[in-house]
């Protein structure tokens, strides 16, 4: 057995006490249904001009909230951050905060052009 094969064998046999059981197929399909509904709501507004006009002032926050929900669902359930060790969440969250700070700062600087 090569050292690479030994490494793989050891990897397979390790146990990581902080990791919990992942959800099953049923939960994954339910999450997908929620994601699909949110996407339909987001896009549906473009097919209804009257509704689009009526809700125009609220579209920006609505889009941000809806996409945030989709983001959290994918990260939490599909990427298993809800079930894995909190350290992974902190690692990801730290990078995300930096990225969002950069985006927010530039939006604040150039908001007159974007919004």
């Amino acid at each position, binding site marked *: *057995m090569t050292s690479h094969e030994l490494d793989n064998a050891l*990897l397979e046999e390790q146990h*990581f006490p902080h990791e919990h059981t992942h959800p099953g197929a049923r939960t*994954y399909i339910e999450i*997908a249904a929620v994601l*699909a509904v949110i996407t339909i709501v*987001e896009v549906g507004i473009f097919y209804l001009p009257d509704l689009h006009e009526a809700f125009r002032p609220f579209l920006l926050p609505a889009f941000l909230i809806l996409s945030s929900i989709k983001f959290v669902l*994918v990260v939490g359930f599909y990427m298993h951050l809800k079930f894995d060790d909190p350290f992974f969440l902190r690692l990801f969250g730290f990078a995300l905060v930096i990225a969002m700070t950069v985006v927010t700062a530039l939006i604040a600087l150039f908001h007159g052009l*974007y919004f």
Partner: protein
Amino acid sequence: MAQAIVHGGGGHGELTRQHGGDGGEGHGDELEHAHPTSTGLNSVKMLMWTFIGSECMLFGSLIATYVADVGFGKGPGPKQVFEIPYTSVSAFVLLISSLTMVLALAACQQGNQRQLRIWLVATAALGLVFLGGQYFEFTTFKVEKGAWLDTNFFGSTFFTLTGFHGAHVTVGAIWLLSLWLYSLRKGIPASKSLFVEVAGLYWHFVDIVWIVIFTVVYLIPTSR
């Protein structure tokens, strides 16, 4: 010849495996002492999450550049170029591919090789459909709408951002097809489901980036 591999340490003990050999089998190949990593976390997943964190910053910078520059210069802008109904189909395809990806992982963890292969190839196929849509979109924008990399700030930042994302989808599709070929040849047992899980993390990351791009780049500018 005896071979010993020592992992870990750092005050948490050590992981040692004795391998007796002469190239034959049954010569004392036994795991003497196995335990988790010194952090108690899976180091392969740790690597992947660190990589994903760095990718967040990359795409954060690209999105920020788009947001900052989209209003400058002459030429077509988001309202003249984008076709939300068409792009929404692409977004939907990528969302569904995330579902097929987790179903592949679930099948692998249950030891169901047939379903694993089906979901892996379905995920890669959906990724390729997304890429085909992006190619069509880019061509339409360039030929019919006159928007390209050198047209204005909108063109430069939009095609750079979505092009980078498309490149990531391409890498993901190649990765998934490689896993699929591997599963055809040797199979991926439940004990090796980590390989599928890590590929899945990458694929879902590509999906969440598109969730943000779809909202910030497509929906918000065209809805105002």
